[in-house]
């Protein structure tokens, strides 16, 4: 069974169509890099796959659970958005540990420390999040989202605000997750970084997937040209 399978998934907000007719299939260990301009519906699609938003029409299965899913679906998902989703007054460890506890992990503190260590943040674990740089906050956010070893990781512009070392650490961590069989959907504006991890690439425009292709050897330069044609010229 596919890890992610949607058919005609759509979402409207009042009269505005945010996502329309999205059909896609991803197997275990696949990584879809999803590109598109702001307002294309990428975040809305991710939130539907995460079970945070109810689809208006269409159907989908994520980690064997039908959308919009419930606690069973959410237990299998790690969601990283462009907002850090952290409490600034709590330390990095407390933020990650809280989530580990809410996911029912046995030794939540040790799990939180392991997750922070993977993001090279164990030396900052007890610092309040508000004292960390934007890039470090993003890494804490990734530790928070992956502390429970989710089957599916949904990432919304995770490279935003990261410096070179942060991007490299994140890229390495995501590659390790993929190698371990985690299925990922990665929304990003950075085509080279997205394609470096991707087994599939897709372009979204005005709520619809306008181009989907499989293949791990997509040339970033060629793809950038294709992307510009689709997004800027509406090919």
């Amino acid at each position: 069974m596919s890890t992610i399978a949607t058919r005609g998934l759509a979402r409207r907000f009042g009269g505005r169509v945010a996502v329309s007719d999205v059909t896609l299939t991803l197997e275990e260990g696949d990584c879809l890099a999803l590109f598109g301009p702001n307002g294309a519906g990428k975040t809305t699609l991710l939130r539907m796959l995460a079970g945070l938003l109810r689809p208006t029409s269409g159907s989908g299965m994520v980690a064997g659970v039908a959308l919009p899913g419930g606690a069973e679906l959410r237990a299998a998902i790690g969601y990283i958005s462009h907002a850090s989703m952290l409490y600034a007054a709590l330390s990095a460890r407390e933020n990650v540990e809280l989530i580990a506890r809410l996911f029912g992990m046995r030794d939540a503190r040790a799990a939180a420390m392991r997750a922070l260590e993977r993001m090279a943040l164990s030396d900052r674990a007890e610092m309040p999040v508000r004292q960390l740089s934007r890039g470090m906050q993003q890494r804490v956010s990734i530790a928070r989202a992956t502390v429970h070893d989710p089957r599916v990781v949904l990432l919304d512009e995770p490279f935003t605000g990261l410096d070179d070392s942060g991007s490299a650490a994140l890229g390495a961590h995501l590659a390790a997750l993929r190698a371990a069989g985690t299925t990922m959907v990665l929304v990003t504006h950075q085509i080279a970084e997205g394609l470096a991890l991707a087994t599939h690439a897709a372009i979204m425009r005005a709520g619809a997937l306008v181009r989907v292709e499989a293949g791990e050897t997509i040339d970033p330069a060629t793809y950038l040209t294709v992307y510009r044609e689709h997004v800027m010229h509406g090919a």
Partner: protein
Amino acid sequence: MAPSTLSAALLIARKDLAIEFRTRTAFFSALVFALLGIVIFFFAWDPTAVSSLDLAPGVLWGIFTFSGLLGLQRSFSLEQSDRAIDSLLGAPISRESIYLGKAIANLVFVAAVQLIAIPAVQLFYGVSLLDHAALLGLIALMAAIGLVAVGTLFSAMAVNTKLAEMLLPVLSLPFFVPIVIPAAQATARLLSGRPASESVGWLKLLLAFDIVFVVACMLAFPYTIEE
């Protein structure tokens, strides 16, 4: 295995209280508001026209109601910065546990303000509130449960609107009335030295509203946070 509703609620309440303990912004705002309110009422009061026994219950419950709103406002606004609420919504816990956790933290917050404001009212108005500490504590706790049950729900509803600070009192205050009336009436009877049996009817009414509000608000909460 994901935690039970109560375990998850306690985790969320502990988190909220830890944040408040470190920042202390809402607690001090509410406390200063309560104390200033008590002082302003004191200076506006003409003891030859209205006795302290008649005035004190109204002051007490008016102050609790409005200072409580300050804490309730903060309840969901702290989840909005950096969309931290999504980390709770993305966890495999029931929506009710989020409501319950927030309500427990708010209850502690309101009770802490009450603990300081009640002696302040006794000091300024010369009424013997602390002589009836046990029964007054029960009334205060029951009233706080009702206020917090309603206020937590409306805090969640109002936080996503542009006029959240105005909307919360507008939505909440009409629902606070059935809580404040029995609480003030029971307090007035207590202070005037009437037998406790005269307060029992008001306490039963308060209990009934508590049960209705807690159950109704908990059931309604998931619909307020679904997009």
